[in-house]
């Protein structure tokens, strides 16, 4: 178990180093950091001196090591556009993105699993067919279109929900600004959360349905029925748990992509999160923000991956080797 965790952590570190390399290449070679830092009137000599003093003439390996060292300390330099430390910018916007991703991820999981199980058990029912048809729309419509449609119906026509922003927020300890505690904050969350989670929900639903149908065909389900267990015990005790083993992995990874895909939703709803920050930075080639965002997203992916693997381990006893494999 311990060896397994250590191996997974080492793998994660390697992945992060690879991402750091890409991020560094972006930082160092896309655009000229000097150009962005100084004004038009700075002379060539001054630029060269600055280049030297910033270590931009050092060997590649040295520069990369410095970049990684800084990154580990959360040091990604100053935003060209906003003239603030990048890390400060990101941290101030991270709560908005995380709250949005958390709510839409949870909703996608709960509704996705419920709908998947339902459509698998009532394969030929009218409601199942309806759900499957609607879900096809869910996967085929682009996210921004869903967002715009929702805004049009619920914000413009019905005027039930706000169409942009986070509403009022409350600042918690460590500067975490939450929208959960106010009425307008919660209302503002609904449309973006649906927009962001719909696609993932559809994916989870289809995955759960396919897995569940697969599991329902297995011998141990037949044997469970042959033992006279109730449908409830067979479906929710035996089948669902086996269905969840692969679903956990995919769902965990989905959470990572929810955070990554938040870019589009945040743009549509003017949600003040890191995704919107990233898009605004891309427009003006604000390289430090871009490379920091890249590293951050990769870090979130890697951490989620690690947690998913450990969860997998907890659910599936076959992976727990500490008891010594097959005994006779």
């Amino acid at each position, binding site marked *: 178990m311990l060896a397994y965790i250590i191996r997974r952590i080492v793998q994660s570190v390697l992945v992060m180093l690879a991402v750091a390399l890409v991020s560094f290449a972006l930082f160092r070679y896309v655009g000229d950091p000097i150009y962005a830092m100084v004004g038009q009137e700075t002379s060539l000599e001054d630029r060269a001196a600055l280049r030297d003093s910033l270590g931009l003439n050092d060997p590649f390996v040295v520069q990369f090591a410095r970049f990684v060292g800084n990154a580990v300390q959360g040091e990604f330099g100053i935003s060209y556009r906003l003239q603030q430390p990048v890390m400060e910018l990101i941290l101030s916007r991270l709560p908005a993105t995380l709250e949005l991703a958390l709510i839409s991820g949870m909703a996608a999981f709960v509704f996705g699993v419920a709908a998947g199980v339902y459509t698998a058990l009532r394969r030929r029912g009218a409601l199942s067919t309806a759900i499957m048809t609607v879900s096809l729309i869910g996967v085929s419509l682009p996210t921004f279109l869903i967002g715009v449609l929702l805004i049009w119906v619920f914000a413009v026509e019905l005027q039930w929900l706000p169409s942009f922003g986070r509403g009022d927020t409350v600042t918690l300890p460590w500067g975490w600004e939450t929208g959960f505690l106010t009425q307008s904050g919660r209302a503002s969350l609904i449309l973006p959360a649906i927009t962001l989670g719909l696609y993932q929900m559809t994916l989870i639903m289809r995955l759960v349905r396919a897995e569940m149908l697969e599991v329902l065909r*297995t*011998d*141990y389900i*037949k*044997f*469970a*029925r*042959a*033992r*006279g*267990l*109730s*449908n409830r*015990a067979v479906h929710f*005790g*035996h089948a669902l*748990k*086996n269905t969840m*083993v692969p679903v956990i992995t995919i769902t965990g990874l989905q959470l990572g992509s929810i955070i990554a895909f938040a870019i589009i939703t945040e743009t549509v709803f003017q949600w003040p999160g890191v995704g919107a920050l990233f898009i605004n930075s891309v427009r003006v080639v604000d390289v430090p923000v871009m490379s920091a965002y890249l590293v951050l997203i990769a870090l979130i992916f890697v951490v989620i991956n690690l947690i998913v693997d450990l969860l997998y381990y907890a*659910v*599936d*006893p*076959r992976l727990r080797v500490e*008891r010594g*494999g*097959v*005994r*006779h």
Partner: protein
Amino acid sequence: MTKPLLSVRDLVVEFPTRRGTLRALDGVSFDIAPGEVLGMVGESGAGKSITGAAIIGLIEPPGRIASGEVWLGDTRIDQLSPEAMRRVRGRRIGMVFQDPLTSLNPLYTIARQLTETIRTHMDASEGEARARAIALLDRVGIPAAARRIDDYPHHFSGGMRQRVVIALALAAEPELVIADEPTTALDVSVQAQIIDVLKEICAERGASVMLITHDMGVIAETADRVAVLYAGRMAEIGPVRDVILQPRHPYTAGLMGSIPTLEHAADRLVQIPGAMPRLDAIPAGCAFNPRCTQVMDRCLRDRPALRPVAPHHASACWLVDDKGAHHG
């Protein structure tokens, strides 16, 4: 013969398909007496497993029992409500499937699967169920049952898992056990032990057994009577000794080889030239006529009924005349 425990009358099982309805069983009738072991043999696809599935009411839709009756004691069970039939499964009829590696839910301990089965059918506390489960495991020959009960299926070898499966099938003390090729998936070295365990426990509880197998040796040693199935029809049924030594149906004769003795029967079924017809291409008259060496005109026209040839011995072949004499 005493009043049968199980009585199957003219059972017809059909599978509607796009290209017409397939008859997997066509007029199968047989009885099993209390405490009796009935062997069931026949080539792959003959309908052995479907017979078992029909009896416990687990034919996969759209397959269905089209006509016929299944009686268990004084109860007609082929028309019970799903809930009433569920209470028969496990409680009155136990089932052992072919592959012990896939019959057990990999995510639950043996203890959980056993106590769940016991408590579904019997009024027992968790503690009582566990004590019963340990006694059962001990009885089927799991060493250190009290400790092993908390292991997962993957901790057991194939032979041990099949013992667990037998314990599960017998957990609620059924009157009839249907064992569908219980040793086919096992190592040759443990096959005999598994059959012995099954036979002994059923004998000591007075339970009847329907033993589906390809192994004539097992039939010879274990069964009281044997039924031979061909293309969904009963070809011959009778006491093991008579059927092996004096087969009254050319198909059975072919299966047993040319000079059968009880010792010789330990071999696997002999290959007969030709193949069993597919369900959508069963010839008119006797289903065996394309492969039969003694085929007559009549065999191509009329289907032979199962008729007595000797006490307790019946055959469906025109070579047997109405008085039961055999012109072979």
